[in-house]
C-alpha cells in the first residue's frame, strides 16, 4: 500500500516545505488521491516513488500559490515577464550571475535551498512554471509539454527559458547570491 510505503517520505518532504503538520498531511492525502486518479498515466518511466514525489511537488507549489508566500518574485522584479531586461543594450548581463553560497549536495543546505526554490517557483508566472515543472520535475520531453500545453516547441523553449531566468533571479535576490565582481558589465 502506497500510504505505508511512501507516506512518511512524502510527509517529511511536505512538512519541510509548508511547516504546518495539518497542511502537510492534507497535501500527502491530496497526492495519493491524485495518484489514484492518474494511475493509468503512470508509464513506469520513473519509479513509483519519484512519480508520487512529482505529484506532491505540484501540490506544494499550488499551496504556495494559493497562500502567496511573503517573498514574491513579482515584487522583486519590476516586470517579471520581461526577461530581456536582464541584459543591457549590448547583450551583456545587466546584473552578472552571482556566485551561489550553497551546496545542495549537502543535506542541510538542500533543505534550505528547496525552501527558497519552491517559494520562488510558485511566483513564476503560471504557464512558465508549469512548463518548468513538467520538464524538470516530471521529466517530460519538449514534445510532451507541447501537447499538454498546446503550444509549439519554440513557445515551450521560451516558457522554459523565462521560468529558469526568473527562478534563478529570485533565488539570487532572496539570499543565495554573493556578488564578487561588481554588478554590471
Amino acid at each position, binding site marked *: *500500500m502506497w*500510504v*505505508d510505503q511512501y*507516506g*512518511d*517520505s512524502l*510527509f*517529511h*518532504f511536505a*512538512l*519541510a516545505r509548508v511547516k504546518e*503538520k495539518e497542511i502537510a*498531511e492534507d497535501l*500527502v*492525502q491530496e497526492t*495519493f*488521491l491524485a495518484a*489514484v*486518479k492518474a494511475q493509468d498515466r503512470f508509464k513506469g518511466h520513473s519509479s513509483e*516513488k*519519484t512519480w508520487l*514525489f512529482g505529484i506532491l*511537488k505540484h501540490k506544494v507549489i499550488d499551496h504556495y500559490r494559493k497562500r502567496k508566500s511573503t517573498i514574491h518574485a513579482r515584487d522583486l522584479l519590476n516586470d517579471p515577464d520581461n526577461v*530581456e531586461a*536582464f*541584459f543591457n543594450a*549590448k*547583450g*551583456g*548581463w545587466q546584473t*552578472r*550571475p552571482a*556566485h*551561489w553560497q550553497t551546496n*545542495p549536495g549537502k*543535506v542541510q543546505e*538542500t533543505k534550505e*535551498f*528547496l525552501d527558497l*526554490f519552491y517559494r520562488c517557483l510558485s511566483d513564476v508566472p503560471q504557464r512558465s512554471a508549469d512548463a*518548468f*515543472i513538467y*520538464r*524538470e*520535475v516530471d*521529466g517530460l520531453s*519538449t514534445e510532451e509539454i507541447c501537447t499538454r500545453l498546446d503550444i509549439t*516547441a519554440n513557445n*515551450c*523553449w521560451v516558457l*522554459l*527559458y523565462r521560468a*529558469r*531566468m526568473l*527562478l*534563478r533571479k529570485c533565488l539570487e535576490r532572496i539570499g543565495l547570491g554573493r556578488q564578487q565582481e561588481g554588478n554590471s*558589465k
Partner: protein
Amino acid sequence: MKHWMFRCNDVSQKVSQSLDASLPFHHRMAVQMHLLMCCYCARFRRQLIMLGKVSRHVDDEPSRDQTAATLSNETKERIKKALRAAP
C-alpha cells in the same frame, strides 16, 4: 545575430534550450566558445543544471533519520479510508 558572435543574452537562451533539445552544431560550437571566454555565462549554465537537479530531488531522509517527523497511524488510516472512498 551572427552565430560565431553570440552575446550573453543569446547564449543564455541557447544554454537553456540545450537542456531540452539538441542544438545545431554551429550553435553548439558558438555557445562553447562563448562559455570558454565568459565566466558569468558558464556560471549561469552551472546554476541552471543545479536547478534541474534540485527539481528532481527526492527526499528519502525519514529512512535514515530516526527523529524525522512521520505520519501518525491515525493519519495513515484516515488517508487509506479516503482512498478507499475515492471514486
